[in-house]
């Protein structure tokens, strides 16, 4: 049993190919149902976003699994020749596949490290898979773990903490001055692209009132319509500034459009309610002296840009912490997967039976007092006869399922029914597996090891 991942992302494939292979939400259930029936696939899940298309599956052998998944991917876009897809694919198995999924969920593999959407997208992919019952014991555990790791990375590292775009940085700052942006007013001075983008971000963050002023009044009216805002004649805006909590300035003017005296006046009529002024014009349009006024917070393009560069660096530092967290979690999941192998389960079951048998025989012999070697042999045979007969069924069933897609399910069931936790931890399983790999025959004298 192995877990494999086959896919392509923004780093390995151009958008032309990604969009061909993308599975839209509406077609996802069908695609999952087909994947579930695909030969060689025990469990499967499809993660399709604008930046990646990835298939994760539980298969018997990694190489065969890669082939099946590659073939399956080909059927998503039959018009694209096989040879055109393969060079863009990455194929991972075992720990590497698990680590990849964890890194994806934690947004470490995203175009913008720390972006928030991917975690939700993984969750949606998982829910779709649950809807089609295309996942089972293994993928359910692995994907759930990926979601919790992704969440932990977001809350316990600063990876998603600081904005990495100018307009979003402006929104984040605004939220540290005004708790609630709803009901606050933004004044756009000039209608450059950057200013409009910032305004759009502010509006989607909850700001409801927008005022716009430009030297060309018609343009202001036009932009105001788009934002559902109020146009203001350019020569009047300094008087209207008192009503604005946030001022976004980006005109083509070559000198200051807003002076310190204007802002001081506005603050006085606002009774010192704070104002946030964002100057994204070059050359600057707001007198830097405004920044020295109490309760006025002035940020220019360099302040925001500098912030963003620092933030990107910080995200990279935080990403290292995230990688450490992921490494630890991958180790745990890999160990769990190993425990789902059928052979170690058989070994553990056998070992448990032997231990019980030996202990019971010793106990009863101690109570019987002096016995002849023959009597002793009879007691031991009785005990081993019972254990072996009882275990025969489960062991045969486990062996038979070892290579089937249900193997993990049987192994897990056996572990829970016989409470094998301790035995699985007790000894290096791989080694023991070699010794006990063959099904023990009923007749084998089990008392051999007993003292």
């Amino acid at each position: 049993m192995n877990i494999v991942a086959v896919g392509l992302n923004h780093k390995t494939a151009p958008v032309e190919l990604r969009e061909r292979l993308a599975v839209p939400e509406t077609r996802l259930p069908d695609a999952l149902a087909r994947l579930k029936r695909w030969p060689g696939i025990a469990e499967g899940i499809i993660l399709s976003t604008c930046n990646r298309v990835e298939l994760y599956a539980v298969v018997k052998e990694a190489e065969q699994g890669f082939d099946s998944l590659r073939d399956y991917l080909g059927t998503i876009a039959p018009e694209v020749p096989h040879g055109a897809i393969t060079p863009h694919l990455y194929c991972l198995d075992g720990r590497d596949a698990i680590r990849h999924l964890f890194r994806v969920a934690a947004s470490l593999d995203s175009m913008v490290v720390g972006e928030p959407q991917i975690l939700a997208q993984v969750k949606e992919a998982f829910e779709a898979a649950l809807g089609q019952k295309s996942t089972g014991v293994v993928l359910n555990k692995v994907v759930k773990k990926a979601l919790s790791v992704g969440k932990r990375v977001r809350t316990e590292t600063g990876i998603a903490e600081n904005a990495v775009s100018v307009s979003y940085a402006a929104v984040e700052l605004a939220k540290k001055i005004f708790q609630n942006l709803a009901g606050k007013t933004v004044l756009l001075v000039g209608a450059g692209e950057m200013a409009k983008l910032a305004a759009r971000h502010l509006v989607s963050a909850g700001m409801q009132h927008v005022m716009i002023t430009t030297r060309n009044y018609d343009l202001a009216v036009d932009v105001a319509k788009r934002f559902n805002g109020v146009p203001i004649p350019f020569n009047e805006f300094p008087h209207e500034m008192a009503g604005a909590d946030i001022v976004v300035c980006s005109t083509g003017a070559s000198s200051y459009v807003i002076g310190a005296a204007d802002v001081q006046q506005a603050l006085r009529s606002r009774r010192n309610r704070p104002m946030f002024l964002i100057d994204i014009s070059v050359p600057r349009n707001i007198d830097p002296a405004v920044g020295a006024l109490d309760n006025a917070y002035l940020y220019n393009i360099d302040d925001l840009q500098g912030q963003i560069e620092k933030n990107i660096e910080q995200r990279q530092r935080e990403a290292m912490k995230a990688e450490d967290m992921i490494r630890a979690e991958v180790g745990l999941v890999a160990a769990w997967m190993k425990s789902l192998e059928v052979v170690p389960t058989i070994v553990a079951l056998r070992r448990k039976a032997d231990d019980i048998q030996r202990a019971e025989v010793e106990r009863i012999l101690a109570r019987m007092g002096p016995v002849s070697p023959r009597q002793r042999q009879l007691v031991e045979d009785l005990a081993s006869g019972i254990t072996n007969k009882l275990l025969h069924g489960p062991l045969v069933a486990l062996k038979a399922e070892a290579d089937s897609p249900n193997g993990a399910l049987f192994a897990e069931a056996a572990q829970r029914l016989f409470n094998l936790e301790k035995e699985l931890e007790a000894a290096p399983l791989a080694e023991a597996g070699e010794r006990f790999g063959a099904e023990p025959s009923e007749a084998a004298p089990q008392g051999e090891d007993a003292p």
Partner: protein
Amino acid sequence: MNVLFFEVTLLLYFLGTILFLIQLAGRWEQVSQSSFAIAGIGFFFHTLALVSRMIEAGHIPLTSMHEALSFFSWALVLVFLVVELRYRIHILGSFILPLAFISLISAAALPKEIKALEPIFRNVWMHVTFSLLGTVAFAVAFIAGLMYLIQEHLLKSKHRNVLHHKLPALDFLDDLNSKAISLGFPLLTLGIITGALFAEFARGSFLNWNAEQIGALGTWLFYLVVLLGRVTIGWRAKKAAYLTVVGFAGVIFTLVGVIVKGQHPFA
């Protein structure tokens, strides 16, 4: 029994203080959860301590400086727990818990024995309760002001660190400051009136111009001016934050005056 509960509380607040101070430096989800839990458990034991002391004393335990400081600390933690549950301003704990701990350890240093209540002091708890609750409100205003000044400094210097992210928005802090003072002022007023009535009743004079009475009146006047300034001429935001931080120094001075000068019937 009450002393045992008190000591358990002291230990828990100490632990809580350490955990909350650690959090100023970084983000650790588990530390943050356990610190809240420890504050909660500490508060539970503190409540037990107060109730058992009341039962042992047979009257409301607000008749000595030890008891007053303990109650003050209890009310501070109560405010933190309520605000945390309501607004999720976890960082408030990093300011309130140390204050509560300092107050409680000061209480621990003072004589703890339960004094027999002279009949004349039977109604003194009213004066003490009002004054202390007023002080709690001013302490909250002080903390809101302090947080405001830190956040304001970080925003102005364009230096954004963990603290910047954890501290709430400026207008929220200003609002908290304003609410706290609007609540604290009437409480202090009631405290002073009941205190004056009590002084008249016990000593025959409303006012005898000792240090802590002057301190109390000075504090009252100060907050009156702060309050009126906000309403009339826009003393809000940074100015209000400064004033409340300074004003609380006056409150502390009055409190220390009560302890040190010893003219107050409490000492």
